[in-house]
């Protein structure tokens, strides 16, 4: 009865792991794997190459960011939200549960593309910001026209506009104090409405925070979306387990004068410690598979700064000339990394976990 499952399991998990270990110690370069003599075991050379590659360390660092955001973001937020619902601090239990879980139902690819549009410099964030900037700037300009008397005093007007404008004015006019004045004077005095509009279009500050293509911040949207996607899942898990806690214990604590924070910290938290540890494991293995999300959001770019280990591995194996031994070494590193994290979780749970 176990046999069919076990064979499939070996096919999907067991054999690939063995294969990964063998190939990561070899110089296999593609081609026939069985029967050929074109490759052999070469020892730990691949791992030396891996550790010497700065992109590996970068990918590992990004993975650690995502794990941190997941474990220190998703879990606590999920816990707090669940607690607020559980203690009826907020009403509409069904609504929060229903809505916050929605992101987990949507394909990661869809989520990735959607958020990359939202964060793009032509997307809705930028658009809203630009509308806001434009109306603020427009108010400033019309104020200036009123106080300076408009085109009747072009020097003063030019001066004031330069002061009120962002530094991009220097790219629009090569010498603002001269060129802007010429520009202003090219309009009919009665046509200040058009002039003001044109000035806003030309000079209003613009949103140009292109998060996903800036090396130093590109990971922030990715971490944010990771958080956004999974908070609801942990909310559901924690809430369901909180509802299993004996109500009497909490009422007792209340009557003994425990504050809300004390109830949360001393009663609810310890009785969920096992669930939290298991969720953390779920969370870690989930965050290590953030492959599709990053592929859809940035493809690992710009200049490979948002690569995580799985993207880095994918790149080595399937993009350009395949480097299978190195890719397999990365696979082994991912497995070891996740097992190490899971081990840490178990140790923490054993050390700090509450008794049940």
């Amino acid at each position, binding site marked *: 009865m176990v046999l069919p499952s076990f064979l499939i399991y070996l096919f999907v998990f067991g054999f690939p792991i063995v294969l990964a270990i063998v190939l990561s110690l070899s110089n296999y370069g593609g081609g026939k794997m069985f029967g050929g003599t074109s490759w052999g075991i070469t020892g730990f050379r691949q791992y030396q190459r891996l550790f010497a590659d700065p992109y590996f360390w970068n990918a590992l660092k990004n993975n650690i960011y995502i794990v941190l955001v997941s474990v220190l973001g998703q879990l606590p937020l999920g816990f707090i939200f669940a607690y607020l619902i559980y203690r009826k*601090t907020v009403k509409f239990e069904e609504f929060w549960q229903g809505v916050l879980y929605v992101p987990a139902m949507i394909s990661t690819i869809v989520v990735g593309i959607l958020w990359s549009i939202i964060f793009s410099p032509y997307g*809705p964030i930028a658009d809203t910001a630009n509308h806001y900037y434009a109306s603020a700037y427009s108010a400033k300009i019309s104020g200036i026209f009123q106080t300076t008397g408009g085109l009747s005093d072009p020097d003063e007007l030019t001066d004031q506009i330069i002061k009120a404008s962002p530094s991009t004015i220097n790219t629009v006019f090569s010498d603002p104090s001269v060129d802007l004045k010429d520009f202003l004077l090219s309009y009919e005095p009665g046509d200040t409405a058009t002039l003001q509009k044109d000035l806003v279009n030309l000079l209003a500050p613009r949103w140009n925070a292109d998060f996903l293509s800036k090396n130093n911040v590109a990971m922030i949207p990715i971490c944010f979306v990771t958080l956004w996607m999974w908070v609801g899942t942990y909310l559901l*898990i924690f809430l*369901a387990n909180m509802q299993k806690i004996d109500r009497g214990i909490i009422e007792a*604590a209340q009557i003994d004068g425990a504050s809300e924070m004390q109830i949360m910290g001393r009663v609810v938290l310890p009785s969920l410690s096992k669930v939290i540890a298991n969720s953390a494991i779920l969370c870690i293995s989930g965050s290590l598979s953030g*492959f599709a999300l990053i592929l859809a959001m940035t493809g690992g770019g710009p200049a490979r700064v948002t690569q995580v280990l799985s993207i880095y591995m994918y790149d080595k194996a399937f993009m350009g000339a395949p480097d299978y031994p190195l890719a397999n070494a990365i696979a082994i590193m991912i497995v070891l990394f996740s*097992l190490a994290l899971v081990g840490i979780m178990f140790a923490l749970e054993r050390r700090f976990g509450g008794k049940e």
Partner: protein
Amino acid sequence: MNQQQGVQMRGKRGKKPIRPGTILGKAVAYLVMGIFAFMTIYPLVWLFFSSFKTTTEFRTNMMGLPIDWTLENYRSAWKIGEFDKLIGNSVLYTLGSTVGITFLSLLTGFAFAKIKSKATGPIYGSFIIGILLTIQSLMVPLFLEVTSIDRGIGDFLRSLGLVGSGEFRLFHNTRFGVLIIYIGSALPVGIYMCTEYIRGIPSAIIEAAQIDGAGYFRIFRSIIVGMSKPIAMTLSILNIPSLWNEFALINILVSETNLKSLPLGIYKFSGGLSSDYGKQFAALVIGMLPMLLFYIAFRKQITAGVSMGALKE
């Protein structure tokens, strides 16, 4: 100690428990959770409405409702993504693997829970390790495995003259390969959940059936399957969305359009086409709508199932 005292005191006074949370705390709670709910609903609603705008209208009227409603985006996205081919595959992969996962998990779970054998411990343990591994980390060796096996078998059969000179396919670029690997990837969790569940079925029932002369397969068919309906339901409902949305594995297992699933088709709309917002939005809506409808239909069961996902070990 305090517990008992407290319960007694409450019993005596018969007072309602004090309502927690000050006004300020409540306001902050509503605000933070409201922001999260907003960040969930708004982008999706925005996406939905934007998918009915032309790209030109989108540029000038990004945040408002569409003025000229158009279905053109859907028509061309459907064509470019070749979704007519992909939808069928997605349904097949999702339902086929779900049935396979559920059946095999129940069968194996029954064996682990109720049939005593020395091998149970180690084999069950090896499945548990599978829960901790992310299958995606193994996509490269998995790819090499399926392609090499196909090539190996192909060469062998060719040397016997059994197949022609064409490419031999068993696992790579076949629906069968996708199904097997999908089933395998979800088995560890499925078997774990089923084993724990079936352990809770009283052994006396099984022993009684054995005394009546029923074999294990008979017992499985007539007793276990019937009594395991709730866990089978939970397992299916958890697997359907994750299989439907699966991307990383099928991305390496299949390279031909007529074998691809929906997420692979949606992925086409990232990057390259991205200046053509209209089609992109339509493709995204096509991508998320089936599972949103599934969620609306089965929300109660999904919610219950998710919280079972983090069972105690």
